[in-house]
């Protein structure tokens, strides 16, 4: 009688163990499926976020040259050199655009500077190549886009007449 009872208990314990392993297997399977799904989802989310950043960079590169902080009086994808210099030297537009930096590059005529492009200051203009405007953006992504623009400034000729002198430039926006 005692021996029979022991037999029954052993079989029950075996069944419990079997179930526990089965259960662990099922749980592990679901966890693995979940992890796989999360990895797929996060990779697609990252891709779509990068796509949105790129789209935003393109939209900003096209519209920044017409914003009042940079635009010439005549408008039409034209950047005012003096406004760009003020933005470079002050932090007036800090937080206005979702960007980390704006570079305004003079494309034509070239200055003849060899090697590294020369950063513009009030003192060295027009013998320089680039105006860099920094703007802190906590996101600091990698998207960038550019657009060709007119780069204009007021100049005075030898007769004392003030006129608008325009050159070809490029605006590079980094998100």
């Amino acid at each position, binding site marked *: 009688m005692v021996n029979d009872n022991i037999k029954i208990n052993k079989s*029950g314990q075996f*069944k*419990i163990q079997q*179930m526990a392993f089965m*259960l662990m297997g*099922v749980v592990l399977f*679901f966890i693995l499926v979940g992890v796989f799904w999360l990895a797929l989802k996060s990779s697609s*989310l990252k891709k*779509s976020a990068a796509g*949105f950043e790129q*789209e*935003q960079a393109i*939209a*900003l590169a*096209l*519209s920044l040259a*017409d*914003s*009042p*902080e940079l*635009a010439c*009086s005549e*408008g*039409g*994808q034209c950047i*005012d050199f*003096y*406004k760009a*210099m*003020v*933005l470079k*030297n*002050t932090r*007036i*537009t*800090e*937080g*206005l*655009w*979702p960007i980390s930096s704006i570079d305004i590059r003079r494309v034509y005529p070239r200055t003849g500077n060899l090697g590294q492009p020369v950063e513009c200051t*009030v003192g060295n203009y027009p013998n320089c190549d680039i105006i860099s405007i920094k703007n802190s953006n906590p996101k600091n992504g990698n998207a960038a886009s550019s657009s060709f623009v007119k780069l204009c400034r*007021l*100049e*005075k000729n030898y007769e004392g007449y*003030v006129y608008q002198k325009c050159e070809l430039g490029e605006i590079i926006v980094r998100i």
Partner: protein
Amino acid sequence: MRRDKRGFEFSFSWIFAMIVGAVILFLAIYGATKLLRTGEYQQGTETAKKLTILFDPLGVLTGDAKSGKISLNSPIKLYEDCVAAGDFGRQTFSVAEKKSFGEEFAEKGAGITSSNKYIFTRGDINGSEFYFFSKSYEMPFKVADWMIIGSENYCFVGAPTFFEEEINQLGITNVAANQSLAECKRTFPDIEKENVFCFNSGCDNKIIDLSGRGDFSSGYVEEKDGKRRYFFGSLIFPAAMSDRDNYECNVKRFMMRASKISRLYAEKSKLLSINSVCDSGIDVDLAAYSDSLAVFSQRNKTSFDALALYTQGSGINQNSQCELW
């Protein structure tokens, strides 16, 4: 008396399988519901981001004004929240998409914040087609482009010629300028009373001129309850076609940005002078104007107070030999 002692015996494995099955089923249903909600939240957030990006090229950029229609694949509810704090203030847009099952709108997605957009709306808007209309705001230099977004129709009765011409030239399909209320009803048979505005008098919502010249370059929009929204320059349209909170907040944000731009012009004027190009002679006025605008932005002021600043700005005349803007 015989008693049937037979019964159904539940073995341990049966009980165990049922409990575990129920738990797995519950988790699966719970997970699927959560996934569906997350999907709707993500969809809403993506649509809000797409719309915010779209608003950039929809600004005026070149020319005087722009109008058109945004068509979406499915109806959405667009929420807008405006805050006039910090250097430029900000507007947050969030979108709720239709639920995967049913006609209700899902929970709204994450808000997309922007500091360089000035969107005027009348409450939350819903639908799959939105009309937009954008124009520049000047004070006296260009401050920003504003945009009105809505899905409702608007009618202006007894509008001056310039106003009527502008609407007709732009071809804004949800806005009409008519000479009588009856004409308005004919143009938009189902138009709501609060979307009808009469110049001077004639209906519940009035547009009153304060310029003294009758050109409505400044004035106010008065609603049935007597509340007024003061406008100046191109803001006549937003004053009529947006709600009070949204309008006052965006006007304050315009003043914030105008203050920065005024300072920028003062600095530009100094640079031109240092480089011996020309002397605008208004850098001091611009700096003072920038300060007045900054003070306005920091205090609890309304569009009524902004009217005085607009008039002050109009008095700054730039030298034609040294144009700053």
